[in-house]
């Protein structure tokens, strides 16, 4: 009687049949039930069966996935993206890149320490630029390895133009003072920053003619060249213009004179068609006399009719900070 009573009591308490176990106890029993020989509610055989089932299930699924993926990849042309420019997500306006990129990611500050005990920290920038420019140097890895024949497209008026089988050479000589020999100016407090347009497959710039240059660009050139006419500052022909400026008035104040070399990018370097050994055309911007001790926000822009500059999306625009300690 007593035992039945106990049982009933439990039933009443737990609201279910069977003696109520503690939650923990029943959980432990769920984990391993010695009597039934079950682990997590299944016997070894059951586990085996279900495991085999799911191995097969996932095996087949994985195979199915793989087959479909391979099939899909078969539809892709390795030489050209399926969806290009506007059709693809990348769009019709290239972004811009700059070098050297600071080693610590998450920052775009180029901190030049030209003297003092930590002067050698600039070495990373020098190395970065050197590395980046390796393919550019004659006899560089790409040129040598692939046997690509570079043509000189630097002349805007020239006939040499990038094409499916034509790769343009970018000559380090054109970088002016920004070369490895003088450490790209980093040791002298006149750092050079490499600017380039992002590659977009099959993208070609629509350049401005000198006549219809945007006012903003004209103004910049005026400031830059002491009111010299723009034609005296840049080569003739289809050019992408590059400008660099302090972002804010304060930055403009501290940025000092800059030197672009080469001053523009010729349209002939485009389009990018995944040519072997393709070299992105670059422009070196050298800060000749930035005010030391100030972080200068620099914003460089590329100018062409089909470059839609957007500071938010960073299209046709690049931003970095410069700090020169002297």
């Amino acid at each position, binding site marked *: 009687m007593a035992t039945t009573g106990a049982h*009933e009591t439990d039933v009443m308490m737990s609201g279910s049949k069977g003696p109520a176990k503690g939650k923990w106890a029943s959980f432990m029993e769920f984990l391993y039930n010695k009597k039934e020989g079950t682990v997590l509610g299944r016997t070894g055989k059951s586990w085996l069966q279900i495991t085999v089932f799911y191995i097969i299930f996932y095996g087949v699924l994985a195979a199915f996935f793989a087959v479909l993926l391979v099939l899909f990849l078969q539809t892709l042309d390795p030489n050209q993206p399926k969806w290009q420019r506007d059709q693809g997500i990348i769009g019709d306006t290239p*972004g811009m890149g700059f070098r050297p990129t600071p080693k610590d990611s998450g920052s775009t500050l180029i901190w030049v320490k030209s003297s003092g005990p930590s002067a050698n920290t600039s070495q990373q920038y020098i190395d970065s630029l050197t590395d980046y420019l390796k393919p550019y140097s004659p006899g560089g890895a790409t040129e040598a390895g692939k046997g690509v024949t570079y043509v000189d497209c630097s002349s805007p008026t020239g006939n040499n133009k990038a094409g499916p089988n034509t790769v343009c050479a970018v000559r380090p000589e054109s970088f002016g003072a920004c070369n490895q020999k003088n450490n790209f100016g980093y040791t002298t407090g006149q750092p050079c920053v490499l600017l380039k347009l992002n590659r977009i497959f099959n993208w070609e710039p629509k350049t401005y003619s000198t006549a219809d240059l945007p006012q903003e660009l004209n103004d910049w050139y005026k400031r830059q060249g002491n009111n010299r006419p723009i034609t005296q500052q840049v080569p003739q022909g289809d050019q992408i213009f590059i400008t660099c400026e302090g972002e804010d008035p304060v930055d403009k104040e501290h940025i000092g004179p800059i030197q672009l070399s080469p001053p523009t990018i010729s349209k002939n370097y485009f389009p990018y068609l995944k040519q072997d050994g393709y070299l992105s055309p670059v422009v070196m911007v050298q800060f000749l006399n930035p005010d030391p001790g100030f972080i200068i926000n620099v914003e460089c822009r590329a100018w062409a009719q089909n470059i839609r500059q957007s500071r938010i999306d960073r299209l046709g625009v690049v931003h970095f900070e410069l700090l020169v300690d002297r």
Partner: protein
Amino acid sequence: MSNMGGSSNEDLVSQESSNGDSEPPEGRQVKFSGSTTDLSKPPLERVLTSGVPLSSHGSGKDSDEESIHRLRIALGPSDSQTDIADTNKLSARPWAKTETTKEGSAERSGKDGTLSSHDNQRLQHMRRMEGQAFNQGTAHRPEGRVARIDDLASAKRNEGQDEVLQGQVREPRRADENVQRTEPTESRPDNQETKRNDRQFLATLSPNGASFDEDYPHRRPLSVEPIREVRTSVEMPSTEFIRDKNSGDTIVRISKEQRVVPVRHDEIPPEAKHVDVRVLYEGIGSLRTKVDEGIVTDERQLFYDSVATKDTPVSPGLYAEPVHILVGRGRKPKQGVTIATQVEDEDLLAKTICTQVSETELNRLTGMDEDGPLHASTVKEIVKRRVAETPVIVKEESRRSSNPVTGKEMKTAEPEVDSKRPQFHLNNDDDGSAASERGDVVDKTLRPVGSCAQLHGILRKAPSAKWGSQSTVAFDEMQPVSRANSIAGGDSDNNLRARSGSHPHVAFNEAHRNPSFGKKLSGMFHLGAKEDEASSEHGDAGHHHHHRPHMPHFGKHNGKDASHTSHSSTGSNSSGQRTDDSISPLTTGKKVPWYRRLFTKKKPMTRSFTMDDLKQDLKMDDHLIPEADLLAKLNVNPETGLSPDEAARRLAKDGKNALTPPKKVPEFLKFLHELVGGFSPLLEIGSALCFIAYGLQFSDQSDPPGDNLYLAIVLLCVVLITSGFLYLQKAKSEQIMEGFKNMLPQSAKVLRGGKVIQISAEDVVMGDIVELHGGDRIPADVRIIEAKGLKVDNASLTGESEAQSRSTESSENPLESKNLAFYTTNAVEGLGKAVVVRRGDATVMGRIAKLTTRIDSTETTIAREMRHFVILICIFALVMGGTIFIVAVAIGYGGLYAIILAIGLVVANVPEGIIITVTVMLTLTAKRMAKKNCLIKNLEAVETLGACSVICSDKTGTLTQNRMTVSHCWVDEEIFTMDTVTETSAGKNLPDTPTVKDLIRVATLCNRAKFKDDQMEKPIYQRECAGDASETALLKFTEIVTGDVAGYRQKNKAVAEIPFNSTNKYAVSIHETDNEGQKRYLLVMKGAPERIWDRCATVISHGQNAPKDAEWNQKFQDAYAELGSMGERVLGFALLPLPADKYPYPTQFDVDSKDFPSDGLHFVGLISLIDPPRAAVPDGVAKCRSAGIQVIMVTGDHPLTAKAIARNVGIISETGETVEDIAKRTGVDVKDVNPRDAQAIVIHGTDLREMSSDQLDDVLRHHSEIVFARTSPQQKLIIVEACQRSGAVVAVTGDGVNDSPALKKANIGIAMGITGSDVSKQAADIVLLDDNFASIVTGIEEGRLIFDNLKKTICYTMMSNIPEITPVLLYFILRIPLGLTTIPMLLICLGTDMVPSISMAHETAEADIMKMPPRHPDERLVSGTLLQCCYLQAGTICSAGAFFAYFVVLGSCGFWPSKVMGLRDLWEDPHIGDLQDSYGQEWNFAQRMLLQRTVQGAFFAAVVVFQWLDLITRKVRRKSVFQKGMRNWFLNFAIVFETLVTIFCIYVPVLNYALNLNTIRFIWWLPVIPFALYYFLFDEIRRYLIRRYPGGWWEREHYF
């Protein structure tokens, strides 16, 4: 009584009995007076004589001190029993059985007769004793006792012989003790002899009166001894009322001689919330004494209720000393806790029943009424006698207590007890004896009824006592063990202590049965630590108390006195302030442990009805006090009523006469409740974390990305929207009920200022004179002051289906008292005038309504499932989120990053929309069910109904039409069966013979029922009639057959009639007939067939008038038996044309003198009536059967009727046989039939009462066709619980107020919309608008369907969790760009998935779900296989498909899969402006993010597309989709709808940016399709294999 009583008593009787013989008080007075003489029993003496009452049974392991103490208290008396047994070789068992076995049938089953003979014997003993043992002063004592017995018997004549038995049972023992007490004095040499005699008497009595309690040999004969310490007696002149300065308590000081506790309601200080009465006695013979504030008092706390019980047998001289009664205030006994344990204690009930009467009576007796002292002379008598006797007794006591012999006796009893209960050795003998003593005394004090069994007897025999009593009984039987445990387990408080003490047998008994579960039960009852401590201390204190004789002469014999004194005071203190702060001055000053003060927590009332509650219900004296007093008290003139002003004043003071609606939860709390339910907390935490993350970012950098803030707000919105939706949904369903409740505005006709006006029932005030008319609803609890044929239908309150007449007579039990009518019951017919005595919540109905709210309703299955599910998912989500957070931090990510990651995972894991979906689905189903007349009150009940495996159904009204109908006629030696359903065909198969015509004629004429005036347009069966049920049935029948009853009656006017009454059992009327112009008289008679038959001389058959001979007699008997065996109500009909010569045309018949013949009639025939089953019911029951649902009929009707109906509707099937049927068929004795062979069983309510729960379980297990007949509504609760014990999900139908506990207790309560009482509707989950059983069946079908569909929905909805989780996981593991961010995840859950999942509600059943057994209660809604199917199978395939789309988009835009792997860090670095893809294109950050949004768009679209096929697949759980078809247009539309939503989200420019999506090419919708098809195919195969190999491994693992 008179023949036994001494002369003085007789005087008393004559004095007192002038009130009239119907009332018992005078008997009581006799008793009191008799009791004054016996002072022979000093309590301490008993302490000393009794051994250590260690129990040999019970809780070996119960370490709770308190319980031990209580047990000891409870057990205490056993040793005195042992004592008796020891000396006299008389086993204690018989008594124990009498007292303790509630189910003991001995008393009930007809041994009373023998007992009463023993009674005589006993009385003779008493007389002898009287002669031998007592001096002159005490000479009349026995008579007093005898008188009491008689009194008891007379007072409870209704209750039958049990009561007498009780008296006997109690008597001998007391006598026995008296003798014991006198024994050592040596002044009475004969008393040894007397004692022996007494014991012999006991011995002789026991085998007959009660069976031995073999199980518990030491259980003492409980309440054998009726000694009361609370003296109740005639009024006393010397009463003083002292107001205690400190506490404001009123102390009633009563002088020595007083035997009455002169406490009345009026005396209670108005501020008193509850009154507990402590009886303080001082002086010699007191059990315990205590010095408190200079007054030597003994203090014992009793409850007001028990102060003066009607048949309180007064202890003869036990306390012949001044008594104080402290009327404490505000110390309301904590009922919930205490009572929970002893709710079911029938003894309490017994006491209650007795108590009902007592107050008034007492007041009247004591002269505390306005009338002033009435019985001074009586008092004087008593006083005189008492004074004379007292000293003698004191001497006796002191001697007695020191008697070493008794001590020895006691010791001899001890070891045996001890051996079985060793842990009690801890306590010294004194403790035990004291405890036992106390228990003994208290027991005697509080127990007027001998035993539970007796009580049962009483209750059974007094049908109108049914209500309160049976309910209690029901509770008791329900869970005797639990109660026992709670008592034993020490989870009670002081209150309980007193009670357990007062019911030692209960404590003993139950502790004994199952002692070690007290703790558990205490948990069950939510008893807190405080109470436990308190109780243990009380127990302690109590027990010290007991053995601390404070009286000097006692002190001598007990060296421990001094040391115990302090303890005792502590004890009394703690008991005094048990429940709250205010400490009575008498008990103040002693320590309440500080911790207890700290934790004075309130305990929730958890379990069912409590005894105290019932007691309060029953405690009513308004029906007993003289009418004039009552009216005076209520200050109303019955002729003019209240003045309007006075009424207005009272209304303003007391408020509306209405039941307080259940406390409304403030709306904002309801909303808050939604905010913390379901998955909301998880999302809230997520939102908070996002805010924190944003805050950190904000403090970190000046212009942080707003992503986190955005997400935080979105999550918060999700929570708010979800909660708001659920809140509104619930508010809506509540509104339905609100409207339902207010459908019937009530009005009442009251007499105000001399005029009868009709007012709203709410405005009725106390003392209003109300006019009652047939058809009215009683506006409050009223006392009838005038009645003309007034009948009320108490069915909703008591379950009695027959209307009961009401008059001005009163009887003790308010529920059976004829002069009370109760709130919300209906006056059926007649007229009456009544005065309002209780209104609103104070009414009996109000009480029950309130009590019902305390019953915890069983959690609905779906609620439980959802809770399981939510918890499961939450744990899963939190574990996953937590793990990834830890891993992320461990491998060096920033905390912020890890948090965001974890939030992503949590959000991915939580099916945010599922709660809403489920709610909407349930709502949809509820709406559908409402159309089928099932009004769903509680949404979740929808599903529970589907799960139900047992239906406990009412008969009347639910299974039957609740309309008596003629079903058979016996005429011309043939039984004709009538069509009971369609009114056009009723009686059409009767042959057109003269006999039939005669029968119809008699039935037409001898019938007082009439159609109500405005009813003539309606179909006959729907017309309302005035008249009782059978006459109405006959009226309708004859109306159908003859077509014009009224006209026929008009032609044959009644000139004299005697209506049916229960003594005659027939109705007769004389009509004029116009026989060919010759006016003659025809006497027609109908009534109980045997009565009619007796009065007949001839039988009309086939037109012949045959003389009644033996052959006819046999024919009649056979026909009667046959009709009777169909459970039908049979009426006989006879006629007699009065000879014209003797009764010429104008003759005046005088009904009173009966100047017409009533013998020698011509018998015409029999008509039997039945309440026929509803047309749709047999079909419904059959459906239930095929659906594997057991239908149990629970009815208050006669078993035969019940069985007949059960057979008719199929509850007992064609082949179903009961034991009796088998016996009849095979011709063997019923006893020889193996009960297991019988499929069907009809259980009588009385048998049920005697069944243990095990037996009941057995019945439920072994019989599939069960009918419970003659049950009280309360027994439903037992049945329900038994069914639930067996694991069934139980649906209960009910309409009465008393059904409401069962309705609440059931998994699903179904109330009747038409006949149901409001209270039952409130307690129910479902209201059947048409009261039709068949509606339940459709409800069940819907419920089952919804369960299937919920499974499908959940499986569908949960699937999308996996394609939400995998992007985050792969993002983390494979370092690929994120495939799906949090916002689109929410969009899937709350946007696109919502409508399709809801559309599942319209999915039709796959198979005939009503042909399948109910789902196993253990079957989970969200089972392992379901999770496997949706997570491991569908989910992974979907993920694969979505990732395929992901790679397609990335690949065709330039990032090949090879490039994508490990790309994450560069991809997400906003400072990297030229990330090269597989084609050497350089992507800046914005471009990459645009690409990512595009990928997400594609991923999202892929999931949606996959869900198309998932939805189609989920339509079916077993079948093929091709078998099922696509006819669910809601679902088809949902597919289109979800696609449109997706398109909208993806392609609307700004919106898609906000949702983290981007437009995608059309072709990017497609990559997932192969996977969807693959899945579709797989699932078809899965289901094919399930169908192909039913029960096989595949089904086990893959069928959800």
